[in-house]
């Protein structure tokens, strides 16, 4: 589907637009199912929706979510191939591609997402917190619900999600870090997936921190399972989880310098000679930006 991008790569100006354009109709495509999503029995329709052949992956549970914005720009890529030092004589050097992650959605979100969002906002208001300030953005994409939470409220949100009977996300699958070095002020992300066994639901929380101040509150006191997960994310990304009982390296040796999974950390590797030719290390080979 998107693999034909290189074919249209000769048109630098158009490169940006088709990127988002195919996404938009796709999110709108299941709109005909919108009434289905409004009924509270979206959970029940899931099974039959799944069985329908030929429906798109996004059709499950009817997903009428609309985009508020075009999406968050996380990077701008130039050129077609890896080298940035002027070695590219292919004529593709002038290409510019803006990388946008799916943007915030507006209601209705579809599936069980509206219910979860309502309950969470209600519960936060009961605690005297302003949902607008706590939840920076809500993204519905590919049948998944993501709350972008401001980091100072992460602990309160997690506790609410775990303890509120209508939410009951009692089970956390750990934290995964992501590094967007070009997204100024929001370089480091911690991504949590929370599962509710009671209601059979799963949601995602995303928290960001700037590179200059890589602090995110630890959720170990709410989800003790995140003990090792947070250590791993600290080890690889350098995100400091405040309040963690013993935030030390877990995979890398204790005296290791740097955070290996950050994008600016080199992969390493050495060129290998094979039948007289030098095969460059994987991070030195041609890549497609």
């Amino acid at each position: 589907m998107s693999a034909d991008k290189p074919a249209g790569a000769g048109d630098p100006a158009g490169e940006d637009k088709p990127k988002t354009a195919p996404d938009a109709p796709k999110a709108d495509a299941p709109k005909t199912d919108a009434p289905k999503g409004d009924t509270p029995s979206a959970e029940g329709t899931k099974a039959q929706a799944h069985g329908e052949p030929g429906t798109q992956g996004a059709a499950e549970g009817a997903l009428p979510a609309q985009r508020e914005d075009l999406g968050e720009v996380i990077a701008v890529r130039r050129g077609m191939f890896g080298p940035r030092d002027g070695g590219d004589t292919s004529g593709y050097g002038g290409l510019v591609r803006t990388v946008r992650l799916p943007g915030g959605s507006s209601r209705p979100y579809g599936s069980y997402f509206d219910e979860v969002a309502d309950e969470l906002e209600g519960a936060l208001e009961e605690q005297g917190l302003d949902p607008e300030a706590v939840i920076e953005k809500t993204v519905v994409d590919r049948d998944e619900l993501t709350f972008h939470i401001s980091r100072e409220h992460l602990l309160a949100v997690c506790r609410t999600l775990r303890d509120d009977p209508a939410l009951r996300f009692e089970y956390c699958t750990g934290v995964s870090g992501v590094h967007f070095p070009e997204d100024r002020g929001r370089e480091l992300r911690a991504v949590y997936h929370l599962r509710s066994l009671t209601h059979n639901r799963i949601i995602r929380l995303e928290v960001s921190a700037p590179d200059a101040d890589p602090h995110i509150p630890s959720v170990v006191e709410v989800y003790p399972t995140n003990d090792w997960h947070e250590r791993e994310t600290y080890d690889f990304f350098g995100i400091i989880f405040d309040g963690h009982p013993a935030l030390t390296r877990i995979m890398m040796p204790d005296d290791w310098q740097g955070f290996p999974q950050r994008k600016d950390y080199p992969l390493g590797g050495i060129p290998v000679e094979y039948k007289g030719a030098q095969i460059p290390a994987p991070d030195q080979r041609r890549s497609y930006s």
Partner: protein
Amino acid sequence: MSTPQDTSQDAPQDSPQDTAGSPDAFATGRETTEGTVYTVSGGDWGEVAEAAAKSDDEKIIVNMGPQHPSTHGVLRLILEIDGETVTEARCGIGYLHTGIEKNLEYRTWTQGTTFVTRMDYLTPFFNETAYCLAVEKLLGITDDVPDRASVIRVLLMELNRISSHLVAIATGGMELGATTVMIYGFRDREHVLDLFELITGLRMNHAFVRPGGLAQDLPPGTVDALREFIRKMDRNLPEYDKLCTGNPVFKARLEDIGYLDLAGCMALGATGPILRSTGLPHDLRKAQPYCGYEDYEFDVPTTDTCDSFGRFLIRVEEMRQSLRIIEQCVDRLEPGPVMVADKKIAWPAQLALGPDGLGNSLDHIRNIMGTSMEALIHHFKLVTEGFRVPPGQAYSAVESPKGELGVHVVSDGGTRPYRVHFRDPSFTNLQSMAAMCEGGMIADVIVAVASIDPVMGGVDR
């Protein structure tokens, strides 16, 4: 833990051979171009022994592993023991860290399966399928994956569940001294590996499941081999019951050992047989079906003993249920494609055995070299550059033999994964080791760890 520094700081005057009087002399650091270099000096083992003799408590810190036959690979258990009782237990991991997640960011999406299959090397098909389901979700082609591919995925995963459980039971038995269980387990696992070899060409590290479907269709003779396997396993599985289930020695070693109740599992995020041994029938194959699991008939076995014996019983019963699913898979196999129809994603070539080994099929080579220039270009672009995946993130989870295997994948719209994170069940479950072992005997640590069934390839990645 008593370290040389501690004791020598207590009594610096008693050590006249010390190079310097200041405590700094014991470990000074200096900056070099290759990082900080520490010079460790001072300390005297005689003093350490003396101090240990003077303190009248019996507490000793024992490092079990990282090279120890009963720790399932390079797992290091740090045990504080008082006599035979374990008072504190901690894990040291990371000895098998290979940077797979980082490496994935430098290969195409399809090449990713070659890496992920090596994570938990006892459950390669679960790693591959979980990764491919996540990539397919990002591509939006989840429903386009052909039925035959899904059936074969289920088939391979259930075979894999049997082989993984067999290793868990076999090595667990061996660590108790029950070598017969070990021999039986590896004997039956060999049958499964033979099937893997027949289907994928390899016994481990298959990279057979690919984004969009499978690398290959089943070779001729597979269905017969599967039916033969089912017959064999129907005969062999009761032997584990005969050997272990009613065996008083086996029961005495496993019952009430490695206790972790439902609240503990929830807090520590334990899944799989550990969670089901508390009586909660949570299984992602039932709760959030993938690959068409909702169409298969099988039960989720549970026990309510919360102990190692319950986990053993669950593993044996799950193998029986897996056999049931495999039978249903064999009946469901219908001719059809095993890769999505979209030629922009599907790998262009099929494999065939040539005079120089396995490679691209001759028909395909004839086509790209002799007939179609476009096919050649297409092949070249897909193989060297790969396909692009629209930006965004996705999480997919499968029920591996050890619990919830989750994959968080982020794409930036490029031909390579921007970030892939595996939530490996072994990694999470291993955290519960301390809760299971503290207060018990040393010999029970081995049983408890065996009932967690950690595989360090998955833990460290």
